[in-house]
């Protein structure tokens, strides 16, 4: 299991690097699927099979399908890649990368300074998670339901296809002026 953990974390880090350096959106998304699958393997090696299955089903399945549908509907292909190639010059990404690297170095030093404890990993299965969710976390489950409902309604409202970008007060004003114009 330790070997599985190290191999899959290496795959996760490499594929995430590939995600943030790709020019084509669809290539980045495919590498992101690989990254999520690798993180699911990490979960499995940490003794969390239920969460690993959810990671595959929801992250690598549902959320990626949403992204891929948007990429297909907006026709993001070679022009987007060319635009990205212009945007991603070294002078653009070198500053943020250095700053993030500094933050990461600080965090890693802080993490590794304490005394290291080895985890004796035991599998926590779906039954225990379900008992915990519907026991102590029941309010949070209901709030997550509210959040998902708000997300669905918001996405359905925002995603409606409206071509005009004019505010409704301005539009009413314009209609009145048109009527006045027609009457005169």
């Amino acid at each position, binding site marked *: 299991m330790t070997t599985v953990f190290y191999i899959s974390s290496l795959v996760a880090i490499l594929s995430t*690097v590939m995600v*943030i350096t790709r020019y084509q959106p669809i290539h980045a998304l495919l590498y992101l699927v690989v990254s*999520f699958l690798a*993180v699911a393997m990490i979960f499995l090696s*940490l003794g969390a099979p239920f969460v690993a299955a959810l990671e595959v089903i929801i992250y690598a399945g549902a959320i990626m399908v949403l992204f891929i549908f948007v990429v297909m509907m907006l026709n993001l292909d070679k022009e987007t890649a060319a635009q990205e190639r212009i945007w991603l010059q070294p002078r653009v990404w070198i500053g943020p*990368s250095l700053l993030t690297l500094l933050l*990461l170095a600080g*965090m890693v030093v802080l993490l590794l300074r304490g005394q290291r404890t080895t985890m004796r990993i035991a599998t926590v299965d779906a039954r225990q998670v379900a008992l915990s969710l519907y026991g102590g976390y029941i309010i949070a489950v209901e709030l997550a339901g509210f959040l998902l409902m708000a997300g669905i309604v918001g996405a359905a409202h925002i995603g409606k296809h409206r071509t005009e970008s004019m505010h409704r007060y301005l539009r009413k004003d314009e209609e009145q002026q048109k009527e006045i114009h027609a009457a005169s």
Partner: protein
Amino acid sequence: MRSNKKKYMPPVNSHTVLVVAAILFALGLCGVLTRKNVLFILISIEIMLNAAGLAFVAAGAKWRQPDGQAMFLFILAMAAAEVSVGLALVMQIYHQHKTMDVGDLNKLKDE
């Protein structure tokens, strides 16, 4: 020996998992800061949320409690809601402005 192996898997150093989560989070942060395309920014935010979930699951695995996995479920629900609203916004922005550049989307600013 065999029953012991069935009950406990070989140990992983608990700091290593957190370091992996930190690296993934930093990569996502770098993506958010570097990219100008809205879609890539959303992808990087997904990476960051996933890394946070990995840290929660690692903490839950260290204490052998289900709470870390419960927190990951809430992060999952939040990510799903966030990505659906975000992608609807991306489509709306693209239909109205014909661009994905966050630098061009400053219509609230005085001209």
